[in-house]
């Protein structure tokens, strides 16, 4: 069937199976290298294999929950949103969450996703106690920081290329409410935004939204948003009746692809300017429900369709602390000069490294998206080179078009990862269009 990632680019005809048992999964393995696929939220071709893509949607059962420690054991195909639905009303929230709740636990582990608290708590991998992985020979191995630690470390951020994650135990965090106390600080330029991050190292959550179409002294207008879980006793009375927030509203859907011209530099500029003004108006402290705070785009199902038929590309890199300022300036200047406005652009300060092939490192990560066009593909190559020059690296869960040469030049760990795959035989069992393209 025709398959793509969330960015709807590239599209390929893939053979997809959806086994219901580990035995059936092991059987699927016999027809050649495969890649496991969760809910298809990686943007590019990470979870696509033309010969054998294995949907994990039937591995979606909760197995156990420990009310004293907050340890949840579940199968890899369980959606993060289901975890929240089940446990937020009982006072538990994911310890690390990406910007959408429509991801599977297996996908989150494979990409070692990060959230707005990465600078303090690290990636999703840090919240995993153990994983069960089916290797290339079909045997299932339990691994953790103590047991089969090497396999564990390579699997966190290993993009599903060490084996198929079947189930795992993760830690949830205690929360008193489903509300986030948000502090928004408009920052007129990059320097001010970075200062705001540096001045708030202890804020539990932090992220900045960027208007990347403004140039000159406004180069990148920012709104830096800090947040923390609101304790019950600080919640305004009118919210205290529903401490875990109103139930998520009815999802709106984008039912068709908007024509490509709907997004152009004028509409995007208008949107960004309006958003910035709204940010100025809402500057200061406010209470925001969890779903609006963490998953603003989840309310519009199929929002990826607004980019039209050709789909869109994400660019996300991380730059180390010492080169971040110069690198970000170069990236934002290049983008502003080409006039290719990104609809959604975010900046975030990151904390320590996670798994052995995980994306994050201490520094700043910048994420942008662009509708696919030849011009944008050229722009992204420019951005790749700037990232390389500043010692940065790329987030594979967002990638759809990087070259093997660029990946290996920016990330020496890629060679070690590929070597590990050859030594363990993982390369004979698992491959994706992305791993082929990138020489992993």
């Amino acid at each position, binding site marked *: 069937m025709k398959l793509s990632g969330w960015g709807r680019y590239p599209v390929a005809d893939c053979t997809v199976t*959806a086994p*219901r048992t580990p035995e059936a999964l092991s059987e699927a393995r016999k027809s050649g290298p495969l890649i496991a696929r969760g809910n298809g939220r990686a943007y590019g071709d990470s979870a696509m294999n033309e010969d054998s893509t294995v949907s994990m949607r039937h591995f979606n*059962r*909760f*197995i*156990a*929950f420990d009310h004293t420690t907050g340890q949840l054991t579940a199968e890899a195909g369980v959606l993060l949103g*289901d975890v929240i*639905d*089940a446990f937020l009303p*009982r006072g538990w929230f994911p310890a690390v969450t990406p910007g959408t709740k429509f991801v599977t636990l297996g996908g989150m582990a494979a990409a070692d996703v990060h959230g707005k608290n990465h600078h303090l708590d690290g990636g999703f991998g840090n919240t995993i106690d153990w994983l069960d992985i089916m290797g290339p020979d079909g045997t299932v191995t339990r691994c953790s920081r103590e047991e089969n630690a090497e396999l564990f470390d390579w699997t966190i951020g290993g993009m599903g290329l060490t084996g198929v994650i079947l189930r795992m135990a993760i830690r949830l965090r205690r929360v008193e409410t489903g509300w986030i106390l948000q502090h928004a600080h408009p920052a007129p330029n990059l320097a001010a935004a970075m200062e705001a991050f540096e001045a708030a190292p202890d804020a539990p959550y932090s992220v900045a939204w960027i208007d990347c179409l403004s140039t000159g002294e406004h180069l990148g207008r920012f709104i830096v948003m800090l947040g923390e879980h609101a304790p019950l006793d600080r919640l305004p009375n009118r919210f205290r009746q529903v401490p875990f927030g109103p139930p998520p509203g009815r999802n709106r859907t984008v039912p068709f692809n908007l024509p490509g011209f709907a997004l152009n530099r004028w509409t995007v500029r208008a949107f960004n300017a309006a958003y910035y003004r709204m940010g100025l108006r809402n500057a200061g402290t406010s209470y925001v429900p969890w779903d609006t705070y963490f998953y603003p785009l989840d309310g519009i199902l199929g929002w990826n369709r607004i980019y039209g038929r050709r789909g869109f590309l994400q660019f996300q890199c991380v730059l180390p602390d010492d080169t971040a300022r110069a690198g970000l300036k170069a990236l934002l200047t290049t983008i502003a000069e080409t006039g290719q406005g990104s609809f959604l652009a975010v900046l975030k300060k990151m904390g320590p490294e996670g798994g052995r092939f995980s994306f994050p490192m201490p520094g700043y990560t910048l994420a942008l998206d662009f509708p696919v066009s030849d011009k944008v593909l050229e722009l992204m190559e420019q951005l790749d080179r700037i990232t390389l020059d500043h010692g940065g690296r790329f987030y594979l869960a967002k990638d759809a078009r990087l070259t093997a040469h660029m990946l290996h030049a920016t990330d020496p760990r890629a060679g070690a990862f590929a070597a590990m795959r050859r030594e363990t035989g993982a390369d004979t069992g698992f491959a994706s269009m992305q791993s082929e393209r990138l020489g992993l």
Partner: protein
Amino acid sequence: MSAGPVLILGARSDIGMAIARAYAADGHAIQLAARNADTLEPERNDIALRHGTDVTLHELDALDYDSHDAFLDSLPALPDIAVCTVGYMGEQSENEADMQAARLVMRSNFEGPTNLLALLANRFETRGSGTLIGISSVAGDRGRATNYVYGSAKAGFTAFLSGLRNRLAKKGVHVMTVKPGFVATKMTDGMDLPEKLTADPDKLACSVLRAAKRRRNIIYVKPVWWLVMLIIRNIPEAIFKKLSI
């Protein structure tokens, strides 16, 4: 909101399991009945963990009619709502050639389900309340060459539900007939189904729950099926017999 127990007959099916999850999310205790019920422990555990509700497993052989009374007696409580998702499609070509295969389809889609619902109906009538939900099929709306064995059994089931509804309408017991079109389940795995006509089990479960609350009588899960079947039912037989649809 009353949240009395919901009994799922044929709980191993994807549709049965999806309906169980939907009712559990709505706060109901769930009774899962199937053959080799103990192998449903992972599902039982999953629903109980997700929704914090009581979920119990009950051994049921839908084709062992004589055991049905004892089965109902063994339930922890007479359910408020009983959903019958028992069914088996088989292969039409096999059903044509092998009468034993055909009989199994008839028994699985008609005799077993009607026997169970008849017994439940009597108990509900005595109590004076309850909802019976039968998962029938659009295949029962008109016999077609490609699956008339299954279709005729479902047609019988649909007629049975209709009669039961008529009998119990003044007795406080509601009977709802569900005619899903294509549903992406184990039964249809590997079939090439048109996306616009195909429902997913969880969406189907939501429709069933909503429709049951509104005491609807007959529902097609995807409204387009109502139109499709209206057309199919009204094609004159002289023409219909020459079509391959």
